[in-house]
């Protein structure tokens, strides 16, 4: 996974609250058994003139020339609520988004971001509106920098600090594979599992006996 240390780019505002993962990528755009090929489905319901069409709707923020090449999204509270589909994050990343600044995130979406190197930054709603307002005149030149080492968002003379839980920050800064990290604790997992099976045999006996009967 690509580490996230610091990023500077054009930030596009999508300030409504509760932007759900169905809006980020409609289910109808998840056409292949793959994590790839999802970028063009990003915000498909808003970005294109008609369902299924690829004709860009000029009024949608990411289609406006001033936000061309946007790599940061500014959003309202509860961004990425709804469906657990990781396709929402895969679509954002493939499109070129490296960070989303919102005042809150859906819990599953937040974890999905961390697992894919997409930085979720939490700032108060009024600060995000201030930032969006400041950028609106010249977003191409007045860009936003997000520094994960210092946990700062900067743009011109505006600056805010943010917090991200230490585990998520560590994963992103180092671009780590959590499975490999967790498997370092394999002995502890084995030991825990043996003890749990002794104490709560009722929880495993039915499925293990039955499944053994079913499988070849």
């Amino acid at each position, binding site marked *: 996974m690509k580490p996230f240390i610091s990023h500077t780019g054009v930030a596009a505002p999508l300030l409504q609250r509760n932007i759900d993962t169905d809006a980020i990528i409609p289910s109808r755009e998840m056409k292949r058994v793959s994590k790839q090929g999802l970028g063009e489905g990003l915000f498909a319901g808003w970005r294109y003139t008609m369902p299924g069409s690829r004709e860009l709707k000029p009024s949608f923020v990411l289609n406006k020339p001033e936000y061309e090449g946007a790599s940061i999204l500014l959003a309202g509270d509860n961004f990425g*609520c709804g469906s*657990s589909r990781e396709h929402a994050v895969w679509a954002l990343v493939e499109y070129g988004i490296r960070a989303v600044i919102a005042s809150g995130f859906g819990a*599953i979406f937040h*974890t999905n971001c961390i697992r894919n190197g997409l930085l979720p930054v939490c700032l108060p709603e009024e600060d995000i509106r201030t930032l969006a307002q400041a950028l609106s005149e010249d977003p191409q030149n007045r860009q936003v920098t997000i520094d994960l080492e210092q946990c700062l968002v900067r743009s011109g003379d505006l600056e805010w600090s943010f917090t991200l839980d230490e585990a998520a920050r560590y994963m992103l800064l180092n671009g780590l594979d959590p*499975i490999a990290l967790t498997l370092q604790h394999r002995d502890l*997992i084995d030991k825990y599992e043996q003890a749990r099976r002794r104490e709560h045999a*009722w929880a*495993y006996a*039915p*499925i293990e006996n039955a499944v053994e009967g079913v499988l070849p």
Partner: protein
Amino acid sequence: MAMKGTSTLFDKLWSDHTVCDLENGEALLYLDRVFLHERTGAVALQSLHAAGYGVRDARHVFCTMDHIVDTFPGRGDKTLMPSGSDFILATRRETRAANVRLYDVDDADQGIVHVISPEQGLVLPGLTLVCPDSHTCTQGAIGALAWGIGSSEAEHAMATGTLRVRKPKNMRVMVNGTLRPGVTAKDLILHLIAKYGANGGAGCVVEFAGSAIQQLEVEARFTLCNMAVEFSAFTAVIAPDEKVEAYFEGKDFAPKGEHWRDAVDYWRTLRSDENAVFDIDLVVEAEQVEPAVTWGTSPEQAIGISACIPAAGDYAEAHRQEAATRALQYQGLESGNAITDIAVNAAFIGSCTNSRLSDLRAAAAVVKGRQIAPGVRGVVVPGSRRVKRAAEQEGLHRIFTDAGFEWRDSGCSMCFYAGGETFGEFQRVISTTNRNFEGRQGPNTRTHLASPETVAATAIAGSITSAEMLAKSESLSA
């Protein structure tokens, strides 16, 4: 860690599953069950193997075909969704290769993951269960710690038998009193989300407690917990009681004999201590809840059946005003009109929220002896093959088909639009599902969420109404 005597139910489930605390504020939680489905299961298994990992213990992993399969009678691997069969075939191939038990398209026990898992006793009180589906919180209703995850986390869960999780906060929603007749768990959860917002439970595990919760049957508790994710909660839990014990006794994968007695002894410890400390405490008076319907495009945009559609100006905060304006436009509604003035084109009964036998019985009781209003399309989709068979044994399918409803095979069906079946653009649907998001049931399709009783009554009346209002209007015109 909490002192003895001050732990919540969630604290107990958490500490019982903690393998170790990691150095960075997370814990490594042990997972008793992992459930997959054909929408994301094949990708997760493929990607896991491509990264060089295997499934730690395939006996703890289950998979169902529910998201993409068609629900037409006699369905096969082909779907109305153009590439749907790719997902079905890949899931079959990958689960076989990994030795994962699959509830396939034609399996007698196939159904929606959150319906079949408890139905067969795969989830049990006191267990942890994860699934790459946000409505996994449904299964917390019986006292399990069950939550929805993404695909990467599903890979981690299968490879390691654990997940790295930062402990959420504890919230208790105390529901005092008794729900009025005709008011259901669906109405209660819509009422809660409308009152505290779609992010009201953010960062929390919500424990539902109080007399109104104890009075709910187990299937109604699934409906309640199902929509915890629409409240932005990490998940929801309800302490298991005698109703839950009775629910599981004798189920296929429930413990038997001595194991059953051990299990029940343990389950009886699974409740919040008297002095348990909650980070947030909310109180709902059950008598104040009336049949609820959503008017907008977020589950928080719900009102009681006797209310009028709000105007943007009714809200104090700017963001709610903006959301209301946008929602009214999408839904094609005018503020100030009674919600009961809205005519519908279709009625949908199904989904992991409301597709269990008790839901179908409740809807059938309203439908019995009546006809769907002219021009309204009605669809009933049982949550599982077992629910379907049980309903047919009771003759519920006849009640629905005699009234003009379609009676389907089990699956997620038209809860969401995956490119296959939809009600169509600008069609207005009253639906027992959980999401009224823009485009959820199809591009420009307009969704109104409600209970099975309200959906059934609305199908008969042709415009939004409750079962009680339907009965009253009929007795007036008789």
